[in-house]
């Protein structure tokens, strides 16, 4: 069954006028009897002036279809979906056109529908000439382009620029470049722009912030140049802008990290400085009470010495000797602390005099006799031949003391050998133990400040001895190193130049 025809009645013209499809009604002379707004907009004429005009005037793109329309009148048959180039300035549109006979009791017409298809062709078929090539490049470029006509301040922007700024060209014309520029970046942009317009420069480049529509800030890398007319007057201002917001964000993040690290470094350096000042003050404060202690104990030792060999005096003398040894030990620890701060500050003074290294070695070993015996060590000394040089006696004693104390700490109760020898150019002090030893990768680390490679519980200490040794030996123009392997003990070797300085 055929459906009942629907009568549009008075709604027919509303339907046609609202249709997105262009619609024309042509008479036998192919003049326009009616055109809806979409059809009229396809051509150059206003809708009010199209009635009675030849169809080719109204929609020039259809001008080649005269024969086809006449064919509709003659055959009373429609044609459907004829494809035409869209023409006009855009060149890339296509029109899908259908024609069909329309009759009422008195008249015959041809009805025309026109569907306007926007860009849907592949690019290669669109690029027909050089203008087209540049137009496509402008439209498709990933970089924002904005061309300002200096004579009328008209703006053309490509889609990338619209995306960047968030404004349409018409809006841009209204608010201007200043309106989209971050206030802090306007002065420098304007200054450069003035130089460009004055002809001092032929382009300028600037990283600046834009305020997008809606208020977001984006960073753009801007390059601006000017095209001048035959009279040399600026005609077109050509701006290209690349969005560098992400890069700027990464840079800012990196700068912040760098600033944080710099600050941490400064804090660390300040911490070290404060520590060294503190050590110097602490050492000074500790040395003060040691001075009368040392004087009093020496006085008491001398007094009891006079009363020997009385048994009670003997006992007192032993006790006082213990006190004297412990005072010496305190003095050494305090001296180490003071040395750390003065050496760290580069203030290490050596007082050179003629010194017998062999004698220094023998004396220092003798000083450790009691402690060695108690801890079960046997110390063999091979330092009979004198080894003379131009060194600092107190500092050499300090070096020997540190090395022998270390051997007594780490030697595992096994024999210790101390030796001195000389060559024509070198004096050598060696302290050898047969303890746990040091793996090769730690041979340099043991000479670092506060470095303690063995356990806290068995070998307490400040971790300063070997560092101080190295500072002192270096100050005397010599070298100190360790030869060692785990399980086979350690040999510390000090070599000093023995020529007269």
């Amino acid at each position, binding site marked *: 069954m055929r459906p009942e025809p629907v009568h549009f009645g008075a709604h027919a013209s509303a339907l046609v006028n609202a249709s997105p499809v262009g619609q024309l009604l042509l008479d036998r002379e192919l003049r326009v009897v009616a055109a809806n707004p979409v059809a009229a907009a396809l051509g150059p004429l206003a809708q009010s002036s199209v009635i009675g005009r030849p169809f080719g005037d109204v929609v020039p793109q259809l001008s080649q279809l005269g024969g086809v329309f006449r064919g509709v009148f003659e055959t009373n048959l429609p044609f459907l979906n004829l494809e035409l180039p869209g023409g006009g300035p855009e060149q890339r549109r296509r029109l899908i056109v259908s024609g069909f006979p329309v009759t009422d009791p008195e008249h015959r017409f041809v009805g025309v529908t026109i569907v306007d298809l926007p860009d849907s062709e592949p690019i290669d078929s669109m690029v027909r000439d050089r203008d087209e090539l540049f137009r496509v490049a402008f439209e498709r470029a990933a970089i924002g382009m904005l061309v300002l006509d200096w004579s009328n301040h008209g703006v053309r922007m490509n889609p990338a620029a619209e995306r960047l700024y968030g404004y349409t060209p018409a809006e841009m014309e209204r608010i201007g470049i200043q309106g989209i520029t971050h206030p802090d970046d306007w002065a420098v942009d304007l200054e450069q722009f003035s130089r460009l317009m004055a002809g001092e420069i032929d382009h300028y480049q600037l990283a600046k912030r834009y305020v997008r529509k809606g208020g977001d800030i984006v960073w753009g890398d801007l390059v601006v140049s000017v095209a001048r007319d035959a009279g040399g007057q600026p005609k077109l201002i050509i701006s290209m802008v690349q969005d560098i917001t992400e890069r700027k964000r990464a840079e800012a993040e990196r700068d912040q990290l760098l600033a944080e690290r710099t600050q941490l470094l400064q804090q660390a350096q300040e911490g070290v400085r404060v520590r060294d000042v503190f050590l110097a003050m602490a050492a000074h404060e500790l040395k003060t009470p040691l001075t009368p202690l040392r004087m009093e104990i020496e006085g008491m030792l001398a007094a009891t010495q006079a009363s020997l060999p009385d048994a009670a005096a003997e006992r007192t003398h032993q006790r006082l000797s213990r006190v004297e040894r412990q005072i010496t030990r305190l003095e050494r620890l305090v001296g180490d602390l003071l040395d750390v701060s003065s050496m760290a500050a580069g203030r290490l003074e050596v007082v050179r005099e003629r010194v017998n290294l062999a004698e220094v070695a023998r004396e220092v070993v003798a000083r450790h006799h009691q402690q060695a015996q*108690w*801890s079960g060590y046997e110390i063999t000394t091979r330092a009979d031949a004198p080894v003379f040089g131009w060194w600092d006696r107190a500092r050499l004693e300090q070096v020997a003391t540190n090395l022998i104390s270390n051997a007594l700490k780490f030697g*595992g109760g096994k024999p210790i050998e101390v030796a001195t020898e000389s060559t024509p150019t070198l004096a050598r002090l060696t302290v050898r133990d047969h303890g746990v030893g040091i793996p090769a990768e730690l041979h340099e680390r043991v000479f670092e400040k506060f470095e303690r490679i063995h356990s806290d519980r068995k070998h307490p200490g400040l971790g300063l001895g070997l560092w101080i040794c190295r500072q002192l030996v270096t100050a005397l123009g010599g070298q100190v190193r360790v030869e060692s392997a785990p399980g086979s003990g350690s040999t510390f070797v000090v070599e000093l130049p023995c020529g007269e300085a």
Partner: protein
Amino acid sequence: MAQVILVVDDDADIVESMRDFLECEGYAVEVASNGHDALTMLERIGEPPSLILIDLLMPIMDGNELLAELARRPSLAAIPVVVMSAASTIAAPPGVVVIQKPFGIKALYDVVKHACAR
């Protein structure tokens, strides 16, 4: 018969001072320079001492290791011990009596008398 006290410390002067003052109070004093020495000494003297005074930081066998060794041996586990500690950062095992270095004679006598009376 005098009560026997074993003093274990790697510092010769400390050990000699303590021997001196403890002997003045009538104790018999044995000494050892580390944990290992102390165990050897305990085996040698046979009769367990009334008290062991132990330094924490020593080479070869430290104070905590010695405490563990003592606890493991039924014949020695019951001996009273006092730990002598100079470090505030290295802890003695819980429950062990500690005397902080530096200490004076009176503090030493007090802690020894108290420990030996247990």
